[in-house]
């Protein structure tokens, strides 16, 4: 995770995608670049700077299910995101089937805390769908438990 210290200015940081994006446009927010071909680009990581998602809100619970959105499902007006390799790795893993946050941590070999930050970036860029687990306390659903029991018995 080198070169990703949050205090880095994204324009000057070592892994800023300078070739692809060119210099910052005057008057634009510092975390936007302008690419003559592709239009405005947002470096994903810069979106999370200084902002954290409370761990307790359960949005990225260990068993929240994440799936990559297809390009067709994205808002075409959103700027084309610049992905770090870690972002891309996560998207590739959950492109075909939903995977839990825990599985993404395991398969990327990244700590869950880091995976959550990366998922926050991807979510802000509308590149993923996130399904929270069933909040059991609010959902005393006997039918679901019966289904679990039958599924286990069939193992």
């Amino acid at each position, binding site marked *: *995770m080198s070169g990703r210290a949050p205090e880095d200015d994204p324009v000057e940081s070592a892994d800023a995608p300078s070739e692809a994006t060119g210099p910052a446009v005057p008057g634009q927010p510092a975390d936007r670049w302008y690419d003559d071909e592709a239009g405005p680009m947002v470096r994903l990581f810069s979106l999370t700077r200084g902002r954290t998602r409370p761990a307790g809100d*359960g949005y990225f619970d260990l*068993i929240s299910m994440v799936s990559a959105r297809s390009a067709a499902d994205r808002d075409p007006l959103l700027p084309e995101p610049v992905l770090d390799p870690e972002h891309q790795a996560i998207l590739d893993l959950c492109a075909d089937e939903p995977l*839990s946050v*825990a599985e993404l941590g395991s398969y990327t070999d990244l700590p869950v805390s880091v995976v959550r930050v990366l998922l926050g970036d991807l979510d802000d860029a509308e590149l993923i*769908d996130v*399904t929270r687990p*069933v909040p059991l306390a609010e959902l*005393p659903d006997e039918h*679901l438990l019966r289904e679990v029991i039958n599924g286990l018995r069939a193992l």
Partner: protein
Amino acid sequence: MASAHSDGTAGTAGPGGPTGEAGNRLPGGISLKILVAGGFGVGKTTMVGSVSEIRPLRTEERLSEAGRPLDDLVGVEGKDTTTVAMDFGRIDLRPGLALYLFGTPGQDRFWFVWDELARGSLGAVVLADTRRLADCFPSVDFFEQRGIPFVIAVNCFEGTEVFAAEDVRSALDLDPEVPVLLCDARRREDSRDVLVRLVEHAAARRRVG
């Protein structure tokens, strides 16, 4: 927000509730979790592996020295962090319904992780080894205090006396409705039976309220 929540609003939207057709429409499906707790070396990882379709996976949580989870990149590289590993497995009960089993990390210092794991869990298996029964006391206390349904599964290692389930119950001072089972965590059928018993117990408790 690019999300679909399987919470009350989405889950109860259609006929049949969250497990009916409405549940199947959720992009990520339904995910549930069960915890496998107990002392060191009691067979938690073994049980997770024996009943899961995939070999046990491992994921890490970085904690501050005080044991609090770190939820951002700040301090990730710092010295004042400690890493706790969690073993887990996945059982696909049907398409769109995944059950995750999490082996809980060491009992003494990772209570924040336990709380996170326990939140929203269906229940817990507390594995016990009769040679070191006291090792599972902290787990029993944890789930009792939080009102999380649990069963005791006595892992029968070779060469150990086979205890009667009732002896274990009285030694642990359990409520009469807490199921106590004997098992061999290496055997898939045994681990499956323990899980079935746990979910039945959880369902019965739900009915009672």
